[in-house]
């Protein structure tokens, strides 16, 4: 029987090989464009930003999304690619403390930015309180949406703290609250196909309540 580590490595190698094949295909229009008037250097850019506190510099194709830069170039695969069109929230990361869909922003637009991914929130043995709450409340089944759910929920509590209102806020002039109804509305950009929503709300409510 394969041990889990071997299985993980072989699956990862397979994915890397597939990604390389995809990259080779997508390079074709680029070289076609280069033959007309543009040189290849104009179609790539250099960008430097901090990811989880560490400065990273990349020279990449202008088309690279922040999501692909994190996963394929910096090998931070905790951030997931779901729909790649801003509909599912699996790619949620924080830029300057604010949550965004990493699939809908270009990496080269983030010069000087501070980016936090799930890897930066906590690590095995040193979990962020939100990660621990998701484990405690069983806030997932397959786990694919979980990094996005956790990054989003950490930012949601900051948004409530900053008194940013939501669609369900009754009084726009009153301070925002961390009620279950507010959390459900604010988390609507993170889809969970397994349907772990009620446990996700429990996890977030738990952290919101214990954070005095």
């Amino acid at each position, binding site marked *: 029987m394969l041990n889990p580590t071997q299985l993980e490595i072989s699956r990862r190698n397979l994915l890397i090989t597939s990604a390389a094949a995809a990259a080779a295909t997508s390079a074709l*229009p*680029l070289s076609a*464009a280069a033959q007309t008037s*543009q040189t290849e250097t*104009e*179609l790539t*850019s250099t960008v430097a930003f901090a990811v989880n506190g560490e400065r990273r510099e990349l020279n990449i*194709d*202008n*088309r690279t*999304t922040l999501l692909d830069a994190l996963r394929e170039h910096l090998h931070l695969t905790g951030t997931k690619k779901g729909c*790649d*069109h*801003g509909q599912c*929230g699996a790619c*949620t990361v924080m830029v300057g403390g*604010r*949550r*965004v*869909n990493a699939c*809908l*922003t*270009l990496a*080269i*637009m983030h*010069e000087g930015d501070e980016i936090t991914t799930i890897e930066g929130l906590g690590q095995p043995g040193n979990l962020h309180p939100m990660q621990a709450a998701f484990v405690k409340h069983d806030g997932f089944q397959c786990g694919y949406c979980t990094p996005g759910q956790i990054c*989003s929920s950490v*930012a*949601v509590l900051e*948004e409530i703290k*900053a*008194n*940013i*209102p*939501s*669609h369900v*806020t009754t009084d*726009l*002039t009153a301070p925002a609250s961390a009620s279950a109804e507010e959390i*459900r*509305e*604010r*988390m*609507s*950009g*993170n889809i969970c196909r397994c349907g772990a929503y009620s446990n996700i709300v429990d996890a977030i409510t738990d952290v919101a309540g214990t954070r005095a």
Partner: protein
Amino acid sequence: MRAFTYERASTIEAAAASAASHPSTRFIAGGTNLLDLMKLEIEVPTHLIDVNGLGLDTIEKTPEGGLRIGALVRNTDLAADKTVRRDYGLLSRALLAGASGQLRNKATTAGNLLQRTRCPYFYDTNQPCNKRQPGSGCSAIEGFSRQLGIVGVSDSCIATHPSDMAIALRALDAVVETVKPDGRRHAVPIAEFHRLPGNTPHIETVLEQGEFITGVVLPAPLGGRHIYRKVRDRASYAFALISVGAVIQPDGTGRVAAGGVAHRPWRVEAADVALPQGARPATAALLADARPTEHNRFKIDLVERTLGAVIAEAKG
């Protein structure tokens, strides 16, 4: 996605001039709609001008007692602004009814106005669409049109403008401020900013190639009750089937605009006049020239009932 060259704009004038000199250019700010469309190769710019470094991210009082909202103010920040929440609640409510928290953190005031329709046939590159490919035909008119427009439509296009924010701006009589490629400043009332589809549905606004939006100006506050009610297939994070935005005064007079029904935010003077008489006459005036399809005829009743709920809420 097609390959493109990229520059970071240093001044507004340079951005406008650069855009006018490159044949296929897009400004990029939040990018949440543009990049989505570029991935699908519906938008195929060969050059992107990143305007995020230009400032234009403040909300300031005007000498006339209104507000000037910078083009690059993010939807989250606009909705959360204290003055907007107090004096222009309709705008806060409309913004918060749109998209998700992640998208509102990136999306900008100007970008929200310029977003493209979510007509499924515009997105499906295997289908004819006059907006995506002029002259190819409209798949929506005889197709699945439940979500699509009922008023101001043409034989070429029945797409709707998807913005919630724009409905509020229309009801509030906002003015869009721009810089032309030659550097001249220009102001367009929101009523004239978006075009009807006619036989050129691919031309959606009155902006020239390279014309750059610098901000949006709101007139002095109107008082009254500010209500935005959006009806959609799920409770959050969905585009409107229809929406109603209204400012209603204690005497029952006011103004009303509707979303999800037309190629631009829909407001008709006669509907404002009829508002004190109730939802039925006001809706009859608002949708007087409606030309619904079999699939979206229900939107007429839905607007009337939603407006009825809005009027009741204003009285309550």
